[in-house]
């Protein structure tokens, strides 16, 4: 058996249900690649980044995702996407797995069987040199989180709130390890918000039940979190659209003589174009993200995110750790990017926190790539990574269970 050479490069993959944030540990920022296989109306199939670069008409596009409810269950599609990201020269990574160290993320409450499938694919199919699997929150924790609080350095205790596509999870990390008994999952994610907006628009304005991608863009461009829900609801009820500052016109995408014009918020200073199809949004703009703070609005029997954070913290037995967790709350994930999210979160959480605890909430500049940034930090600290990773040699000797044991899960009997 040849001696394994030291890996020449470290690749960090933040493998999310919506996008993969991929990049070598030495670069500044990752490439953000849709983690899906899409099919356009013309039956043409796009894998991963092809969807954003080559698809022009987003109307009627359907998606196939490897993730199901936050678990990576379908490797047939994930492998097709990974093949393109890792090996396709168009994407540019040109990974030689046998010389590369890999850092990959998985969901927090991943089933051991799903984790093990990833381990086996990484070593037996791609043949990476070394491998470290962890949660995105663990990578967020690797960042210099002190910078978010106006200081510097890292703490060994962080409360990571990861609000992504599948769900929103609150993950207490105590003494550098994820404290699994206190992890709490709120079943509200970007997917649910998009589908709720789609349902609402289809009921009140135009039928857009097939327009998944377009509604997602509408959500990204026009939704915001209000700090005064009752007052804004009154405003939208009482005032006429012309006088209502909260209403917004969204121009739907359409084909023009010079190609496709993408959807956008209407610029009120310009005269309206009669060919444009305009969608007027009122209280949908803020009642959609409101679901993160009040899931019972649509019948989900769970508390909102601030309360969920307190539930997670209360489940940590050590009272000192609880204080430290509330002093190091970090918000990550795409849903935290809604305008007004930070202010509303600070306001609501401050009301729930005990008097003797200092609450500090950190808002990274880019919540979507913050996890990857932590991975890049870890990737550059060779000795720290070396103590945690599994090498190909260890895998060949001991089998897939070595990954499960080393990365903190119970081993699977069938693989012994």
């Amino acid at each position, binding site marked *: 058996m040849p001696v394994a050479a030291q890996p020449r490069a470290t690749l960090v993959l933040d493998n999310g249900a919506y996008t993969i944030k991929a990049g070598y540990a030495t670069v500044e920022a990752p490439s953000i690649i849709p983690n899906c296989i899409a099919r356009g109306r013309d039956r043409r199939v796009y894998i991963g980044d092809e969807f954003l670069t080559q698809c022009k008409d987003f109307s009627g596009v359907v998606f196939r*995702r490897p993730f199901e409810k936050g678990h990576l269950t379908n490797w*047939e*599609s994930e492998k097709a996407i990974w093949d393109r990201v890792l090996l396709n020269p168009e994407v540019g990574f040109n990974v030689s797995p046998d010389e590369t160290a890999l850092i990959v993320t998985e969901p927090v409450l991943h089933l*051991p069987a799903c984790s093990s499938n990833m381990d*086996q694919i990484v070593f037996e199919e791609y043949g990476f040199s070394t491998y470290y699997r962890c949660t995105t929150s663990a990578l967020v924790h690797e960042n210099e989180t002190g910078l978010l609080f106006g200081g510097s350095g890292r703490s060994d205790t962080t409360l990571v709130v990861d609000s992504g596509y599948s769900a929103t999870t609150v993950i207490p990390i105590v003494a550098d390890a994820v404290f699994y008994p206190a992890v709490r999952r709120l079943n509200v994610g970007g997917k649910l918000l998009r589908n709720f907006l789609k349902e609402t628009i289809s009921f009140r304005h135009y039928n857009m039940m097939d327009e998944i991608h377009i509604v997602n863009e509408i959500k990204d461009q026009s939704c915001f979190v209000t700090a005064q829900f009752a007052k804004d609801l009154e405003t939208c009820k009482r005032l006429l659209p012309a006088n209502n500052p909260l209403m917004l016109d969204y121009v739907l995408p359409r084909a023009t003589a010079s190609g496709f014009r993408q959807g956008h918020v209407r610029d009120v200073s310009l005269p309206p174009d009669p060919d444009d199809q305009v969608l007027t949004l009122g209280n949908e703009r803020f*009642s959609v993200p409101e679901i993160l703070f009040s899931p019972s609005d649509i019948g989900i029997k769970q508390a909102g995110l601030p*309360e969920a954070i307190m539930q997670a913290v209360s489940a940590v037995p050590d009272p000192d750790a609880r204080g430290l967790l509330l002093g190091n709350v970090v918000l990550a994930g795409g849903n935290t990017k809604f305008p007004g999210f930070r202010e509303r979160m600070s306001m609501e959480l401050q009301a729930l926190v005990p008097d003797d605890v200092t609450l500090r909430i950190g808002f990274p500049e880019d919540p979507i790539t913050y996890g990857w940034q932590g991975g890049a930090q870890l990737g550059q600290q060779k000795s720290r990574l070396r103590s945690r990773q599994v090498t190909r040699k260890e895998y060949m000797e001991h089998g897939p269970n070595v990954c499960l044991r080393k990365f903190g899960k119970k081993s699977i009997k069938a693989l012994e």
Partner: protein
Amino acid sequence: MPLVELVQTVTASSTAPGRKKGPIRQSDSAAVQRTINRRLADLERENYNEGVKIEVPKTEVARSSGKTPAVRRILASKKNLSNLFDEDETGAGEFYSAAVEPSRYPTRHLCSVCGYWGSITCIRCGARYCSLACEDTHRETRCLKVYA
């Protein structure tokens, strides 16, 4: 002049259009909850049309894949999440026990038609609305028609 007036037992306006005689059929709480659950399941879907199947395109790399039997088994596996939960009860148990608990604060209700405060409950299906105008829209469109 009769002192006792006949009290009719209808529970809604008898001038509502298209209503047949007799008391209005009410949904029980189990049926209402089933409707809510079905709608929430719909909100978790990826595509509107459930039967969409996108075949993974066969590329150069795909043809040389499946180097070991374990990998071939994983790639060919058609198991979905419910199969995996059935196989691993402990894992499924941990997943469900990590769910956020219900709120301590009272639920607020929004009109299912326009989004304002929904103070009135539809007797037939349990949905909320805020005013007579929204009631009419609700009766015409969604009452007992979707998911019923």
